[in-house]
């Protein structure tokens, strides 16, 4: 890819630009030519300076590097949109309202509708996948936020330094556990335990009324929405906890003492000083976690049951997320000679990208809103 080429080029150029020239002397025997920037007046090559040795190279490299994230994002978006065009035209807006996932008859002759080639009977709907993605991430956030922040609070405020160091170390290890390992553990151990021994405590006692009905029902074999949410929570707790811990350590002691000296309880002091001080940072960390949860693929694919094309009936039912669907359907999609199935997966990827972007923008707005009141790091200060 072009982008990859650009990256490796700048990478190899950077070292040549800086130190190696000072030793080699750039072809000049003159000891005054030590300055690699070529700014020395005695430099013999001042006029015929090679472009990669010039002072201007640095800013130019920087400019390219600065714009790389934007370029990459635009390229990915463009590629996805390009690949998804047939699916967007064929699936229409109904894609977001249907709960169905049907490749169609892959053995029948290919038909054309609105100029898009497709197998007869092909019908796709992403509603349960979108809801599953948002739902599992929401469960994860609801669980991970209090646990992560609570862990950080205990580590910073209550534990003796040695123990707090140890737990901090464990948090970082936990953040680095490959998701496939967590997924397998969730599939083998956590899921069955959760569904057989924990969820059963309430699943049959919840009243059968609208809304609450969602928390009622057979808890199944261990794969489903709840298990996925818990697994995702486990993955983002370390992110939230580690960030919050670092933030808490930066809360000025004197300000907390000020609250205590007013006769506030520890909880009141935390509410008055500590929490406002770290709030926008915690929101940022949560959004980092949410981003991970929304996009987490393999672990969810292992514990969700990958039920594509069927509505989510309860907290315990098998479901699928966008990411898990893409990875589990990709192989089969290639058997669709019309290319519609792959195009639909591209459309799904696009939807996921948009959801993630929206979450990020929302986080920005939220951070800005809570930071305006009083934080020294807030807007305009």
């Amino acid at each position: 890819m072009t982008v990859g080429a650009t990256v490796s080029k700048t990478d190899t150029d950077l070292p040549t630009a800086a130190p190696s020239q000072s030793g080699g002397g750039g072809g000049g025997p003159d000891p005054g030519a030590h300055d690699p920037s070529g700014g020395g007046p005695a430099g013999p090559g001042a006029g015929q300076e090679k472009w990669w040795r010039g002072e201007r190279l640095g800013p130019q490299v920087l400019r390219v590097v600065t714009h790389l994230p934007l370029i990459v994002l635009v390229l990915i978006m463009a590629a996805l949109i390009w690949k998804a065009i047939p699916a967007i035209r064929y699936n229409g807006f109904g894609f977001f309202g249907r709960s169905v996932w049907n490749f169609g008859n892959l053995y029948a002759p290919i038909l054309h509708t609105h100029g898009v080639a497709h197998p007869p009977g092909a019908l796709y709907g992403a509603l349960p996948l979108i809801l599953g993605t948002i739902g599992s991430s929401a469960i994860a956030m609801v669980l991970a936020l209090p646990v992560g922040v609570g862990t950080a609070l205990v580590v910073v405020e209550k534990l003796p330094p040695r123990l707090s160091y140890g737990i901090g170390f464990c948090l970082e290890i936990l953040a680095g556990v490959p998701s496939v390992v967590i997924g397998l553990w969730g599939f083998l151990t956590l899921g069955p335990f959760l569904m057989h021994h924990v969820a059963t405590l309430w699943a049959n006692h919840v009243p059968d009324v609208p809304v609450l009905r969602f928390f009622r029902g057979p808890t199944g074999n261990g794969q489903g929405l709840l298990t996925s949410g818990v697994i995702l929570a486990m993955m983002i707790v370390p992110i939230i906890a580690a960030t919050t811990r670092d933030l808490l350590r930066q809360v000025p002691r004197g300000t907390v003492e000020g609250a205590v000296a007013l006769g506030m309880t520890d909880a009141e002091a935390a509410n008055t000083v500590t929490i406002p001080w770290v709030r926008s940072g915690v929101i940022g960390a949560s959004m980092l976690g949410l981003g991970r949860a929304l996009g987490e693929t393999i672990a969810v694919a292992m514990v969700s049951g990958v039920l594509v094309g069927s509505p989510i009936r309860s907290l315990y039912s098998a479901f699928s997320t966008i990411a898990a669907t893409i990875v589990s359907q990709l192989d089969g999609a290639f058997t669709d000679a019309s290319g519609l199935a792959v195009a639909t997966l591209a459309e799904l990827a696009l939807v996921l990208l948009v959801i993630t972007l929206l979450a990020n923008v929302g986080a920005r707005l939220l951070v800005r809103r809570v930071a305006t009141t009083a934080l020294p790091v807030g807007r305009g200060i």
Partner: protein
Amino acid sequence: MSEVTSPAVAGPAAGTVLDRPVMSVDDVSVGFGPKTVLNGIGLPIERGSITALIGPTGCGKSTLLRSLNRMNDKIRGYWRRGRIELEGQDVADSSTDLLSLRRRVGMVFQRPNPFPMSIRDNVVAGVRAHGMASRSELTDVAERYLKEVSLWGAVADRLGDSPFRLSGGQQQLLCLARSLAVEPDVLLLDEPTSSLDPVTTEIVEDLLRNLVPDVTIVIVTHNLAQAKRVSNTTAFLYNGHLVEAGETSQIFDNPEQPETVSYIGGRIG
């Protein structure tokens, strides 16, 4: 003041309550772990007076001050012997409510430490925590105390703003207003003006003079001139010992102990 009229504190001789020191430090030794910071300090804190604690850095002034409202309690290894009394009751007594002790014995710190909330909320933070005023009264309370510390004119039109946009001196005045808003009997000040400009320092000193005799003030200061200017009583601490305490004029003009003479003369510290 409330404790004067309250029958609860009327001891065997109710008429003498006003003459009794509001706080008293009696043979107090304080330390952290194996280290002893204060040695056998005895110091009555007269009601309605300003007491200055002076002495070189590390002599234990701040530790003594922070022992008065038990701010040292959470520091690892802190221990205390002897009695520190507020209205005749030991501050560490099991029947003493720590939170109301700290409300009655307020504290202002060396560096301004406003809370991360609006200016108005800063002033009433303590009032809120102690439920001393209803929600609708809070703005009035904030106004009253901002006026008391001469900050109202500067912040009247931006009560909802961040206090961190104020200058350091204004922030310190805000912290003073916050401490006064909970109506303390005793106010402890730990070098409150060491980071302030001369003008704000003067505002603070005037304020302190106006606060007595309603509020009893204990001020730690490195600024000898300030101690001389504002205090009625001065206590000189050196190496964890109370070398000399007495009327400010006497300490500065006729110090008895050679260490005091040296310190005030600028030869030690």
